[in-house]
């Protein structure tokens, strides 16, 4: 595939006859060399064929082969004339990350790491085969969850007002319609509120081991040696089923709207169509479930800290830094060429990264920009970034979302064969508690790219700036 180098960190796939816009990939020369024959580049070009797409079909430096959309893909479509694609959001609607800080220093926790990891492991169910963190939720109660989003957790004692202020969209995506979620989706989600899931989902205890911008770190309440909690999970079975339900509905409607796309998994319908509106209402509902899920898990993690360390909530000082989603479609106003335009931004494995002064940010964060949380792998590090003004001009206010896989799950498992992975991670200073061995083998550090290289590209392109680095010392896997 032809690639034109625009700068050291930006590459363009020229527009062909079937593409509505060119493709653009944020990557270093080294990353591009590794991507030359990767199907993910074809997926960037395929996304550029979506009716109503504006600007560019974008890919962040953690791009890898997805289904339909590449992981790391961003596509903004005109809010009136564009299409909505469930594949551009993904099965795990509002999969995302939240970071909480504590008042604890790593030195005080170090002797009790195993006890703490065990307490969290026992407190937060993985999901399958468990009764969930909140047993016996009826479908009517789940309808309240998806309608109210994080407000449901506030009303039921799992959250504070401050938590909601520090959650993207306040933890409630507008337009959610509980009646657009199928009975099967509710049944899949019934025992899963407050559960981690498996795959690449995790809860990570880390310490702040590097500060890059002390002024912004101060605003975010981060300091060297501080113990933090990073949670990565999404909308669980309720979201997975919702995506599946609507992929089928929208695929069957495409011929009626005369939409032809190169990949079935890209199935899309006009935003203003009955099917498009139904999906958006269901997606918002599933997104709201995801915010409740992460909020409940954070609440459980806080309880586990208090119980395992025998300290008071006041001594613990547990507070949410921010919560971001990285699988979502949102209506936002952006500059397209020389004019402002309302667009629907699909972020499939990409994080919103609004720059300083954006009205969507809470007053306390507005001067510094939106926190962007980028998990790495189990052993190396994760990063806290903030969005910059350039993101608003060039990436529809979006940045990367993680390290990006280097090895397939199959290959990662094969390379892990016969090794004592828990012991290996232990020698790297990481305690791991997991429900399945595969959960560790598939997610070993060597299966991922170095996330530092990913965030460096975003910083060189002036999309996001590094604020702090987090070093994991305990990881809970589903």
């Amino acid at each position, binding site marked *: 595939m032809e690639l034109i180098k625009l700068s050291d960190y930006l590459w363009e796939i020229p527009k062909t006859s079937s593409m509505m816009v060119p493709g653009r990939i944020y990557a270093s020369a080294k990353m591009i060399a590794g991507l030359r024959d990767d199907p993910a580049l074809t997926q960037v070009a395929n996304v550029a064929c979506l009716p109503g797409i504006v600007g560019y079909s974008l890919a962040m430096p953690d791009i*890898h082969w997805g*289904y339909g959309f590449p992981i790391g893909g961003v596509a903004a479509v005109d809010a009136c004339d564009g299409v909505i694609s469930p594949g551009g959001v993904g099965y795990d609607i509002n999969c995302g990350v939240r970071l909480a800080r504590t008042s604890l220093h790593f030195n005080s926790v170090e002797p009790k790491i195993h006890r703490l990891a065990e307490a969290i492991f026992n407190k937060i169910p993985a999901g399958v085969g468990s009764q969930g963190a909140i047993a016996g939720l009826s479908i009517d109660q789940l309808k309240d969850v998806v309608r109210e989003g994080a407000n449901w957790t506030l009303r039921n004692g799992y959250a504070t007002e401050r938590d909601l202020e520090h959650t993207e969209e306040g933890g409630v995506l507008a337009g959610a319609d509980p009646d657009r979620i199928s009975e099967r989706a509710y049944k899949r989600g019934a025992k899963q509120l407050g559960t981690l899931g498996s795959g690449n989902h995790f809860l990570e205890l880390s310490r702040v081991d590097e500060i890059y911008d002390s002024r912004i770190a101060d605003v975010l309440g981060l300091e060297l040696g501080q113990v933090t909690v990073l949670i990565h999970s999404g909308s669980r079975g309720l979201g997975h089923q919702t995506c599946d339900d609507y992929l089928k509905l929208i695929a069957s409607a495409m011929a009626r709207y005369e939409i032809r796309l190169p990949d079935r998994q890209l199935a899309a319908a006009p935003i203003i169509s009955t099917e498009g509106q139904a999906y958006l209402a269901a997606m918002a509902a599933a997104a709201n479930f995801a915010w409740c899920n992460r909020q409940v898990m954070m609440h459980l993690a806080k309880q586990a800290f208090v119980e395992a360390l025998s300290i008071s909530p006041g001594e613990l000082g547990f507070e949410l830094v921010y919560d971001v989603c990285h699988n979502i479609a949102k209506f936002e106003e952006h500059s397209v060429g020389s004019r402002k335009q309302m667009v629907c931004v699909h972020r499939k494995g990409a994080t919103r990264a609004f720059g300083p002064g954006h009205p969507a940010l809470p007053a306390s964060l507005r001067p510094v920009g939106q926190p962007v949380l980028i998990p790495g792998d189990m052993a190396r590090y994760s990063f806290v970034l903030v969005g910059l003004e350039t993101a608003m001009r060039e990436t529809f206010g979006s940045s990367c979302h993680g390290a990006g896989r280097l090895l397939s799950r199959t290959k990662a498992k094969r390379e892990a064969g016969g090794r004592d992975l828990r012991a290996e991670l232990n020698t790297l200073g990481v305690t791991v508690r997991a429900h399945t061995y595969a959960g560790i083998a598939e997610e070993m550090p060597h299966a991922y790219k170095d996330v530092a290289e990913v965030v460096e590209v975003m910083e060189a392109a002036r999309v996001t700036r590094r604020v702090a680095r987090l070093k994991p010392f305990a990881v809970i896997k589903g």
Partner: protein
Amino acid sequence: MTTKPTTTPTEDTALFREIEHTGDLGIELTAPTRCELFRRAVLALAALLVERTGVAEREQREITVEAEADPDLMHDLLAELLALFTVEGFIWRDASATEAGRSLRVTVRGEPFDPARHAFRGEIKAVTYHALMVESSPNEWRARVIFDV
């Protein structure tokens, strides 16, 4: 209508092979007949979810799916079975399949999933349409399915 006998290969590796996909989990499988291909896919799904040999055949469930095209039939069949596991908590060790025109009836034999007894291998979020393939040659039937995990 043809009814296929129930035979369970002793090793799941004889049923399917995992294929490389960066983010997710893909399988390819072959079979001498169309019906057996679907049956093997049903067993492959169980094998991806749990250690199948640890599942006892105490109860059975029946699922019927119908679709115009074979790839849709494969997607819908596996999606129904994934729901059987995720919603009803039922896991199976063996299966038999019967075809009639565009319709496929599958009977799975197993028991309620018990995390204390069954070795769980990890969640599957969905059966994707990505690179989904069901096709035949004079000698065999082939399928490829990619699961989101």
